[in-house]
């Protein structure tokens, strides 16, 4: 078997271990671990601001055979610190010709229920992978991230069974150095909550949270209005 022993999970959510990005990434890496891969993990938001941690990020990336980038969709793209990490990694890779073949995949989850809204973010990841000389092994999109809400997938239960099934299939393929099969991509991005239901309950959820903080009546405030 080719050298495909070490996987690096980079989590691109400010919520770190409590994020949906972590729920998805952790599930995939726990399967890869069962299949014999060694797993390393990094939280991008803690790595991009200081010289020592940037070096740590670069070292982690250099030593991985498979890099998994899992992040939330922010304003139709990736969160700013994740873009910064990509800029830094690319800059480093401009300096030398990489000696080994490294595989790269991306997992994008979003707040709106339509998984398809993540497509541009995946395209950005694919171009990043191309420019860094990584081998693109596929992208995964998950809609309705708020319904997972950072909880481990196994605990989320039946609702996310297709996500779990798809990630299991993806893990087997990735361990063998193959692309993520279309079957897995389709399963993972399958709607797991009716859109209208998500919108109605989502809106109710925002109101309940505002009530908890005593600002239910102020939720539509316009502090930056020119006319106040």
């Amino acid at each position, binding site marked *: 078997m080719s050298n495909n022993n070490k996987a690096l999970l980079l989590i691109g959510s400010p919520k770190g271990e409590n994020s949906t990005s972590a729920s998805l990434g952790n599930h995939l890496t726990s399967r890869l671990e069962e299949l014999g891969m060694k797993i390393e993990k990094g939280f991008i938001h803690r790595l991009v601001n200081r010289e020592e941690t940037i070096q740590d990020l670069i070292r982690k990336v250099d030593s991985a055979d498979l890099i998994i980038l899992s992040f939330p969709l922010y304003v*139709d793209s990736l969160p700013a610190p994740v873009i910064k990490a990509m*800029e830094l990694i*690319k800059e480093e890779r401009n300096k030398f010709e990489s000696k080994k073949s490294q595989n790269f995949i991306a997992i994008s989850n979003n707040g709106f229920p*339509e998984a398809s809204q993540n497509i*541009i973010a995946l395209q950005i*990841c694919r*171009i990043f992978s191309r420019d860094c000389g990584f081998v693109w092994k596929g992208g995964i999109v998950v809609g309705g991230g708020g319904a997972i809400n950072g909880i481990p997938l196994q605990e989320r239960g039946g609702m996310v069974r297709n996500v779990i099934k798809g990630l299991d299939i993806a893990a087997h393929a990735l361990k063998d150095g193959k692309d993520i099969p279309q079957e897995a991509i389709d399963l993972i991005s399958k709607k797991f909550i009716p*859109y209208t239901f998500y919108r109605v309950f989502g809106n109710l959820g925002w109101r309940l949270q505002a009530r908890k903080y005593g600002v239910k009546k102020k939720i539509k405030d316009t502090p*930056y*209005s020119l006319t106040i």
Partner: protein
Amino acid sequence: MKALLLNGSLKNDNDFNMICSSIVELLERDGFEVEQIMLKDIEVAACQGCFECWVKTPGQCKIDDDGREVARKMVQSNLIIHFSPIIFGGYSSELKKVLDRFIPTILPFFTKRNGETHHKYRYKSRSSIIAIGVIDKPDEEEEATFKELVYRNSLNMGAPVHEALVYNKTQNEEDFISGFSNILKRVEAKT
């Protein structure tokens, strides 16, 4: 009419600065009051993803830094120029750091627009967006991604006029500026 130019430059780059000055000149000639912010020179922490700007301090981020002021200026401008090197088909991290901090200015509530879920708007009047991406040489994939990203942003932000322009450094500057000038006419007509 107010125009806010968000300059997402990552480093000192002569071509980039030159095109930026031409744009500012043109805006001023057309009667815009222009403010340019060099984003790499201001303090804007990363969004923490807590949504408190929607449910605890509605309309305002809890982080008290320059990010708040930029969001306020974005709301109060007729035109926002996203000016950035094209990075892997998207914006630079410097431009993105302020766009991520823009979400206090929309409402949490979901609605359906163009057959998809989006958020309701917090403010009645919204800014037009012209995004200018600068790239060293033509790259179809990156340019298409950039244009699609700007289109999706405009859907989320409700921009009355939105346009993505790519300036590649091998191209004639005058052609580019005349393209920009035509778009500006559309913004003026709608403002």
